[in-house]
């Protein structure tokens, strides 16, 4: 219990440090604000009229997908920042202090939830401007946003582990591109599942990005009129399946990242 309290107290000091950086480097906030707006507008106007869906507008259908993709990309920030701490040697300072061994990671991942929260607010506002609507209750919508943030938080821990292993922040960005693009495209984020070829369809059905998108879509009441997209278990139980993935990722990557941190050394 004592170690948990310490992890939070030290983690709060780290969160403060990370937020000061956002304040000092305005470009971070600028890109956090601009890229979600860009994504919403690009997809809404470039693909928005190219794909016809029965029962709903494509624009409404894809907003949840854009949300999911953006918060997942947002979590690469965790890895890049930790890689930078390693590269600049600050990690040695933290490791030589009598602080909680998990605090740097707890604080890092927590402050990245804040960054993702900002992107969600911006995306939702832009979405509303281009015609996206929440067709359920406010609390269901909130649950949708919370689920997105939770999934991104879990994913942050994967990126934290990656950030502690690679030689520099650029590597995190390049490596995550190669993984995150297929992960977020071979899913029901931007196209309905039935349009995919069989092998990709199976991958997409079990891809947690699909389930988090499906769950958010359901909670916003978007795509309600779309005929059953898939009868795979994850797609028919998207909230439960997403939560299970979050738990699994956290159970594996929290201890793994903390262990890697303990033996990490500056480069």
């Amino acid at each position, binding site marked *: 219990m004592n170690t948990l309290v310490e992890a939070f107290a*030290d983690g709060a000091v780290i969160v403060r*440090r990370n937020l*000061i950086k956002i304040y000092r480097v305005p470009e971070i906030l600028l890109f956090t604000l601009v890229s979600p707006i860009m994504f919403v507008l690009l997809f809404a106007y470039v693909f928005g009229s190219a794909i016809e869906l029965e029962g709903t507008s494509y624009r409404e259908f894809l907003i949840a997908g854009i949300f999911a993709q953006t918060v997942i990309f947002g979590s690469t920030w965790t890895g890049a920042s930790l890689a930078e701490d390693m590269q*600049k*040697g600050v990690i*040695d300072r933290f490791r*030589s202090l009598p602080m909680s061994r998990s605090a740097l990671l707890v604080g890092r991942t927590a402050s990245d939830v804040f960054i993702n929260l900002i992107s969600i607010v911006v995306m939702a506002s832009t979405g509303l401007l281009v015609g996206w609507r929440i067709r359920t209750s406010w609390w269901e919508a909130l649950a949708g946003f919370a689920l997105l943030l939770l999934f991104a938080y879990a994913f942050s821990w994967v990126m934290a582990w990656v950030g502690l292993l690679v030689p520099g922040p650029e590597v995190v960005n390049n490596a995550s591109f190669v993984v995150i693009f297929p992960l977020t495209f071979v899913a029901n984020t931007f196209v309905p599942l039935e349009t995919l070829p069989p092998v990709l369809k199976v991958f997409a059905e079990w891809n947690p990005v699909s389930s988090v998108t499906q769950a958010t879509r359901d909670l916003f009441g978007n795509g309600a009129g779309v005929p059953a997209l898939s009868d795979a278990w994850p797609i028919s139980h998207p909230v439960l399946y997403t939560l299970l993935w979050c738990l699994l990722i956290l159970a594996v990557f929290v201890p793994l990242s903390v262990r890697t941190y303990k033996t990490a050394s500056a480069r």
Partner: protein
Amino acid sequence: MDHVIEARGLVKRYAGRKRTVVALDGLDLSVPQGRVLGLLGPNGAGKTTAVRILCTLLEPDEGTARVAGIDVVKDPREARRRIGLSGQSAAVDEYLTGRENLTMVGRLYKLGAPRSRERAASLLASFDLEDAADRPVKTYSGGMRRRLDLAAALVAEPPVLFLDEPTTGLDPRSRQDLWDVIRELVRGGTTLLLTTQYLEEADRLCDDIVVVDRGSAIAQGTPDELKAKVGGERVEVVVADPADVPVAHAALARLAVGEVASDVAERRVTAPVADGQADLARALRALKGVRVTEIGLRRPTLDDVFLSLTGHASKERS
């Protein structure tokens, strides 16, 4: 407990691509309360590895180490409360101001907010960083960053301090300033272990010196004992014609107090002498007829130490 820092038989190996590199090969160290020990050696000698082990950043493969009576391997957390570390690359956050950096470190030492702010303010003042205190560290010069990093190591007033090449890469002025700061600390009773590549630095700051080569100690003693082994000043001559190197060698051998070193490729001959000024004049006379492009007196360097102790020049390990 008479020794504040004590290490026995430290061994550390790194698995390289082709072969295992032995960074430390049975290093013993002991530093009594309030004394300053200098680890002197070239790049790759194992100095940084030793410091990283003593600061709990790295676990040794063999051997034991105690700092302030605490076993650093068995109880790293307790050890961390008693040490301050200032490393080769200034480990400060560039995006925070100097004050924010020090306050953050204070909070992480669990000093509490008011005490952390107080320590930050007093350290900024004593390290001559008051004017820059509220500027992001990104705008600091190299010397300022080092001073801030050293200040960060002192936030919790640790009884044991480790400085890993504190002045490497600094200009002479900043180096002097940092030496003054370190001397001041030692006067306050801090036990200090520092690593350096400069004989002069070890001589100025340390009570005892351990010369490290390839992971183990090849000599130790007080600076005076070491200098007695190494000799004092050097007369150094560069001749115009490589064929003259043996001639100059023979000429200087007559007035040298130790082994004369020749480097044909650089056309350079170096001789340790007893009485610098008089011997320089003698050397000039002895070299009549030889075309000399450079001649002068200089203090012994790390290379001279190695030449005297091992018969070979210090070499960076590849």
